[in-house]
């Protein structure tokens, strides 16, 4: 079977458009609630504030299937990563111990579309800090 370049392009644009319409039909507030619930469950009810926590991520990710992400929060007990625009917001939670050389971790994640990445760190004293960073995604991951 032969597919011309024009046909291939048309197909790609068509599927992206279909995906976008699908996502817009979902109520926006539902995702926000799930996000807030996930954060509250992680922090044990503590409202996260500002602090020494950073997310390292590319500004523009060409391939949403594998986006390199690093988080760092000196002194944290654990860090949770959330992707606000994915079908489910949870990405990963890292737990540190006395043998952790630094409270940081790197991994690769899937991003369905352009969105904000949120990191929440739980400190040993029970408080929590958070930060967010926006990543533009050219081709979304998570199948479709």
């Amino acid at each position, binding site marked *: 079977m032969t597919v011309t370049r024009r046909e291939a392009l048309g197909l790609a644009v068509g599927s992206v458009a279909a995906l976008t319409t699908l996502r817009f039909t979902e109520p926006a507030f539902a995702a926000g609630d799930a996000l807030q619930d996930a954060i509250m469950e992680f922090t044990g009810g503590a409202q996260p504030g500002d602090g020494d926590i950073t997310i390292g991520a590319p500004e523009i990710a060409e391939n949403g*299937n*594998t*986006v390199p992400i*690093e988080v760092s929060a000196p002194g944290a007990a654990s860090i949770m990563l959330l*992707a606000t625009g*994915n*079908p*489910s917001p*949870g*990405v*990963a*939670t*890292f*737990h*540190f*111990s*006395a*043998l*952790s*050389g*630094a409270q*940081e*971790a*790197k*991994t*690769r*994640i*899937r*991003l369905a579309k352009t969105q904000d990445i949120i990191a929440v760190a739980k400190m040993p004293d029970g408080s929590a800090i958070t930060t967010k960073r926006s990543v533009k995604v050219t081709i979304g*991951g*998570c*199948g*479709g």
Partner: protein
Amino acid sequence: MAKVKPRVKVPKTASVNEVVTIKTLISHPMESGQRKDSKTGEAIPRKIINKFAASFNGEPVFMANMEPSVSANPYIEFQMRVPETGVVRFEWTDDDGSVYDLEKTITAA
């Protein structure tokens, strides 16, 4: 299914209390449960590695809980303090309950 193969990069030697970088990768499809079979239209069931843990001489070092948003062939990099000569043990837990493991020795001088 493709064979699951864990790989880690750990320095062979370190000075006492040196902080070393440990890189891990395991080949695994991390099927998210969101995809559909292109022929039948049925959802492909979720099958991911949901937990990764590293320990040193039995003491926990680093642990990660993973969700379907983690990429296929999950890569994790973290820092570890080396207090003495010992064995680093890595364990990956699959959704189906299987555990893939690997051990590496670090000699502290």
